[in-house]
């Protein structure tokens, strides 16, 4: 079965938006958790969430004061803001709504239910009291969607493009989290020793990597090991390396894959050569920048090869 280019683009974006909703919820949940462990006066700023999501201009168009309430209002309560969880869910739903014919019935119902839940709960969930429940619900419900996709969707183009969307989104988000997490922590190190393991623990937690890290590396969370784990661990499904491996496997099964495959291979080689040894904060940031540029090039290659097909 082949697939319309327009439909392929939409399921790809559905994959990205579902993943984005989940990752943003994980990120906020992890910071929510962290904030309660940090001694007063050393709390990382809530602004960091806005930085990770590249959402500063959006934030400024909605609010003036950068405090917890406003940051959370933007990410949870503002369906209109392009960086918010409800926005990602709306966009995912629109993409499913227009591709229902290639997806299992349950996927539409689940995404629609997710949308109904989020629309009803999001504004009430900005405050600390309901926030955690909302975030957990978003994570769980997106996971259920993923589960149904895995267990019912044929391994054809629809599955492939959804998966590509998810993997690229996930790789992108993992690099963002490490990048801004790292720079915030570096700027803080001069101020106070002894809490950076909490912060790196939060970074890992936001990627659901904390448990795996402990088993693979050990109970003590350290910066270098944590960064390497998130970037390179080949068995951890949220590591950048893992995502790239999977992207390459999916691309292998497609026609016209030459350009995309070349970009994916380039990223993999970049990661192969990566090590935290002797790496200062500037170098780390530079590396992550390059990585993000390449991930974006990969997205463009997919876009041009399969979505923007014009008649010959």
């Amino acid at each position, binding site marked *: 079965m082949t697939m319309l280019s327009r439909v392929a683009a939409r399921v790809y974006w559905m994959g990205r938006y579902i993943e984005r909703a989940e990752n943003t919820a994980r990120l906020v949940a992890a910071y929510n958790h962290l904030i309660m462990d940090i001694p007063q006066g050393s709390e990382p700023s809530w602004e960091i969430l806005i930085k990770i999501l590249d959402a500063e201009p959006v934030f400024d168009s909605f609010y003036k004061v950068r405090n917890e309430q406003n940051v959370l209002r933007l990410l949870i309560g503002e369906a209109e803001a392009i960086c918010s969880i409800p926005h990602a869910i709306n966009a995912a739903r629109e993409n499913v709504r227009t591709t229902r014919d290639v997806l299992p019935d349950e996927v539409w119902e689940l995404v629609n239910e997710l949308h109904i839940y989020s629309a009803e709960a999001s504004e009430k969930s900005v405050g600390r009291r309901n926030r955690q429940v909302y975030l957990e619900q978003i994570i769980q419900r997106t996971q259920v969607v993923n589960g149904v996709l895995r267990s019912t969707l044929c391994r054809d183009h629809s599955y492939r493009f959804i998966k590509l969307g998810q993997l690229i989104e996930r790789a992108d988000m993992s690099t963002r989290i490490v990048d801004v997490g790292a720079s915030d922590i570096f700027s803080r190190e001069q101020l106070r020793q002894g809490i950076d393991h909490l912060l790196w623990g939060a970074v890992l937690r936001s990627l659901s990597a904390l448990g795996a890290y402990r088993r693979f590396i050990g109970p003590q969370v350290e910066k270098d090991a944590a960064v390497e784990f998130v970037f390179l661990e080949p068995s951890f499904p949220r590591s950048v390396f893992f995502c790239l491996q999977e992207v390459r496997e999916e691309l292998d099964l497609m026609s016209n894959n030459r350009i995309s495959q070349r970009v994916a291979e380039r990223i993999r080689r970049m990661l192969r050569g990566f090590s935290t040894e002797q790496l200062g904060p500037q170098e780390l940031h530079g590396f992550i920048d390059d990585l993000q540029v390449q991930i974006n090039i990969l997205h463009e290659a997919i876009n041009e090869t399969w979505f923007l097909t014009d*008649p010959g």
Partner: protein
Amino acid sequence: MKNRWKKYPSGSYYDELITPKGTPRQVARPAVKLLQQLQEEDLEARRAAAELAIREMGVSFTVYSEAGNIDRAWPFDLIPRVITAREWNKVRRGLEQRSRALNLFINDVYNKQKIFADGVVPAEIVLDSSNFKEQCIGASPRFGVWAHVCGSDLIRNSDGHFYVLEDNLRVPSGVSYMVENREITKRVLPEIFENYSILPVDDYPSQLYRTLAALSPRERKRPVIAVLTPGIYNSAYFEHAFLAQGMGAELVEGADLFVGEDDCVYMRTVDGPLRVDVIYRRIDEDFMDPEAFREDSILGVSGLMRAWHAGNVAIANAPGAGVADDKVVYAYVPEMIKYYLKEKPLIRSVPTYLCMRDSDREYVLANLEKLVVKPANESGGYGIMVGPHADAATHKKFARLIEKNPRNYIAQPTLALSTAPTFIGDLIKPRHLDLRPFILQSRDCWVTSGGLTRVAMVEGSLVVNSSQGGGSKDTWIVEGRL
């Protein structure tokens, strides 16, 4: 709860479930009994469950408004409409007969025009109609069928008989809601099915597939079928997606298709161009092909008519089929049935007076206060005069209009639409309804078991359109000794 049903007024119209004596009709008895036995809270819970199911299943339709397009939840009434299979079989045969005659007529009109030569239908009423498309002259679609999907609006009059009110031969919609209404009833009132043998309705997409696949110009086991939608902002988009999914067909927009130099139609896919055999178009023919029809259409596919005339792609419904979907032509359907099939009509049409005929016009002018007068070429209820509700001045105004331009007007007796018990707030009240069954025609003919029942939710109103606040009911065709 029981009291609610006791207060139910009966007798003024034909009621689908309740006799003039106030007791349930035999066929409706188990259903009414079950609903009566439900406790207040239980009933409320079921109604809430139905609403939730509709939202979760995403059964919706789009309403256009100044504030933008709103995706609204589908309005559904819990109390089903029940019809016996015995009665339905008669209706079904009447609809099949009608569909055959209409298709013979359309094919005749675009080819030999024998019906004009034989003086059965005056040529000018057809050829002057905007529904007659010159671009279609000489085409001969497979099996001589043009209207592959027909949605006929039926009403039941106070005499208890079904009448065809109109035949929708262009892009009739509503069938997905027929299927979803059954699904909702199954979810929220499962026990009501225990005492009935109800004919299923969910095989519609596969019947549609069969109908369309038979049209394929290429002999293939699985022809490539595409559902052509104007896009997500169309009010029936939900249905387009529903049918594409149900058939395993591609849901395409105009921009997904192109006509190649070989006059074949192709889809743009991730694996390159793929030839399309059959297009089920849910887009008005005027917008279908900017090369043949409206140049300003951005929804269509340039060259589609070329490909169709060349026989390289089948289009359902065929462009031009709307020529038989016209109020004046409607008046001739009984004659068509006699002319083409040598049969007597098996289902009633509403008697229609054509003001262009002298004797009809005399009758209409003498009986304006009893009749509904409609312009022949308008749709959507514009310019209609309902005689019994209009004042003397309006009667006079219409008399002048008719005399000035008799060909533009038709008149019909006022009909009393049947009612059925419907939830209105906490109460159960009679509301008027119609019924739209769907008739599929290609190699064979097939009619849905029942159809979509639409309900006018406002007391006394006859407006059943969902865009204007109309509701809907699950419609059962029940087998067995009832």
